């Protein structure tokens, strides 16, 4: 069982357990990145603009944005994922257009080299907020603001609390290559926390060999709360959507995408 914060347990000490999830998601990054490019065009991000993708995982968006002509900096807590991102970027011929750095979202402004800022857009994707506390979330959103130019945007893509209320699945079973992840998820309605336990297994024939069990606890927000958080951090919300396709948001949207301008 984890001794430190779950993010350290999962992304640092047992990064190999979560890596197959990143690798499985890599393929769908192609379409998602095209959606992001459409969003950038709609919100005035220049075609060769500077993009900060944090956290970036193994760079499934960042490397592809680089191949579209953007200049990209990707930041992730996990040295393993950053190493894999660099490898994939090099394989794609984007090694010189995508910079990858190990760092903590709460200290982004210390992590990103000064000469790379300011950015035209920053990305916080795949529910990468709510890991610590509401105050920490405001701090993270302020960190993006210090790195994005006035008039630049922040794109937030995050699970929708309202969807959880209506569609919560208490247990799930997912296969990622040779890994199986069995989750037990509880929605703590009082504090709006997901209190999950993810068991990671490696398949050995018909057996499941345990790799690690990680308690994953994170805050979930409704759209109006996310807007308030962004405003507290100095952002002005300009677009709210029910996903990457920029459909209207609803309580049934699995994830929300929010565009805020500095």
């Amino acid at each position, binding site marked *: 069982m984890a001794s430190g914060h779950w993010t350290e347990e999962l992304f640092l000490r047992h990064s190999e357990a979560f890596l197959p999830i990143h690798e499985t998601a890599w393929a769908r990054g192609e379409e998602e990145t095209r959606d992001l490019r459409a969003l950038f065009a709609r919100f005035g991000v220049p075609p060769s603009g500077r993009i900060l993708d944090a956290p970036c995982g193994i760079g499934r968006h960042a490397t592809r944005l680089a191949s579209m002509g953007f200049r990209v900096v990707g930041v992730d807590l996990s040295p393993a994922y950053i190493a894999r991102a660099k490898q994939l970027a090099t394989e794609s011929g984007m090694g010189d257009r995508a910079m990858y750095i190990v760092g903590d979202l709460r200290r982004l402004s210390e992590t990103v080299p000064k000469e790379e800022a300011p950015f035209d857009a920053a990305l916080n994707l795949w529910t990468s907020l709510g890991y610590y506390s509401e105050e920490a979330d405001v701090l993270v959103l302020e960190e993006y603001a210090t790195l994005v130019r006035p008039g630049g945007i922040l794109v937030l893509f995050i699970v929708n609390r309202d969807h959880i209320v209506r569609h919560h*699945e*208490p*247990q*799930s*079973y997912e296969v990622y290559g040779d890994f199986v992840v*069995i989750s*037990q998820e*509880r929605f703590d309605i009082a504090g709006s926390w997901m209190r999950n*336990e993810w*068991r990671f*297994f490696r398949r050995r*024939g*018909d*057996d*499941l*060999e*345990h790799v690690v*069990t990680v308690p994953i606890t994170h805050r979930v927000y409704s759209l109006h709360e996310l807007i308030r958080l962004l405003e507290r951090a100095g952002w002005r919300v300009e677009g709210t959507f029910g996903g990457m396709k920029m459909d209207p948001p609803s309580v049934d949207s699995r994830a929300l995408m929010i565009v805020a301008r500095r």
Partner: protein
Amino acid sequence: MGAEPHPVDDSEAIVAFLRAEGIPSGASILDVPCGIGRRALRLAKAGHPVVAVDPNEIGIDAARRRVPEDLRPRLTYAAAPRMGLPNLAPGETFDVILSLDHSIGRGGEEDDVGFLTRLTAHATDAGRLVLDFLSRDYIASRPRPFAFHVIGNIERHEFRRFDPVSGILHLEWNFYERTGDDLTFRTNSSVDLRLVPPHVVAWMLERAGWRVSAFYGGWDRAPVTEGRRKIVLVAHPARD
């Protein structure tokens, strides 16, 4: 861990249900199918003479071994195919017939009507059938593809797929033994259950010679709502 309660772990609730229905502890019970016989054992402890029947011979053998000496006079287990009720004289009747764990919907509708008709012959004139079945509306509106249950050191993974056109709920189970945190595969099984709404069940019972007197949303006798996973009904023989 907040795993779903195991579906067989409802013996106490059933005893309470029978009492709430005005069924006294001495009332005789036919429990078919009885599974591994856990409920039958609890009902016998509660004072009921019980005959419990299931097609699974291994389960029945194990159930027999668990019966304490003092309960043997009033608890009989028998292994028999679904359509057979062994050791019962044609006229042998019971005050209550329990048919639980979605005993219908294993085959076609005629199969169900045949099974329910056979049960009618073994009910006293004032006897009751207590039948439970999964709510089609609940399953259709909550297509949960996976659940796991932990029973002792066995972890059961259940994979679910519901086809709204045929009404078939396909269930697959993998059984693992927990060895530390590892899961060692032991066996698997699967079943197709045909789910039908309550009014169709009532209609099948009518054809089989029963008259439904109550539908409940579970053993707590709450009303049937779309949020209830299991529906429990009580029926009487339609002998005018």
